[in-house]
């Protein structure tokens, strides 16, 4: 019962202080409509350029990798099959490491 009253008091105080914090930023205006439109238009152009560049890079990298794979398959088939096994294993290991690191970070926090 006492704990409940304490919790309620704390939550009321927290809400009141957050309202006070909000009020500190009441006078900050939102960007004007033309400014927002300009920002979005510039961002749309930047994104289009970036995705074109990324697509080009993707095709270049894909062509490069494909030519290497075909060359290895033609000249050293054993190396090709070893790589086929090692690469997925390395990817899975990497994913597991990221997952473990995130869990540890969350536990730390």
């Amino acid at each position, binding site marked *: 019962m006492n704990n409940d009253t304490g919790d309620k008091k704390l939550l009321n105080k*927290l809400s009141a*202080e957050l309202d006070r*914090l909000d009020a500190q930023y009441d006078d900050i205006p939102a960007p004007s409509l033309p400014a*927002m*439109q300009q920002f*979005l238009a510039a961002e749309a152009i930047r994104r289009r350029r970036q995705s074109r560049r990324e697509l080009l890079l993707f095709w270049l990298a894909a062509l490069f990798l494909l030519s290497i794979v075909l060359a290895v398959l033609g000249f050293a088939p054993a190396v090709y099959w070893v790589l086929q096994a090692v690469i997925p294993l390395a990817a899975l290991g990497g994913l597991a490491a990221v997952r473990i690191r995130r869990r540890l970070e969350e536990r730390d926090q």
Partner: protein
Amino acid sequence: MSEGTLELIRQAQQGDLSALAGLLREHYNFLFKYLIKATMDPSLAEELAQDTVVRAMEKIGSYNGTSAFSSWLITIATRLYIDRKRRWKREADWLRQERGTAAIRWRFESRNMEWSEVLDALSRLPLPQRISVLLKHYYGYSYEEIGSIMEVPPGTVKSRVSAGLQQLRKELKEDE
């Protein structure tokens, strides 16, 4: 959601950039104020608000209207903030947090208002606890909704809220 907002959403989803600009402008102050409270750092809040606007522009087609538009923006902003924090080194993160809180404290003091020990304690909570407490007890979201915003199970949210409140209680008692 008002009919006007729904209409703006429909137009924005059809590629109307000025409808999208109007929609985002309408929600900008709400988003910025949420980010101030979540980050306790005005300059970071501004950066994240801009990033959220850009991400919302990219994803507007996938907004399905099951939650309020403001909740959708909160989800995007929260995930961007969590992602960004993950990339920061711990020391830089601490320094940035200190600078952010100092900026807010300065704003209070420059208007001859007393700085709040509750806000100070809130700014020291770890990020997952601070956001969970804020969304639960200030914005009134359910544990399930917060779980979906932060991409964790509702049980985890519940324990973060409880740990956050316990920490706040402890710090405020120590200050008394």
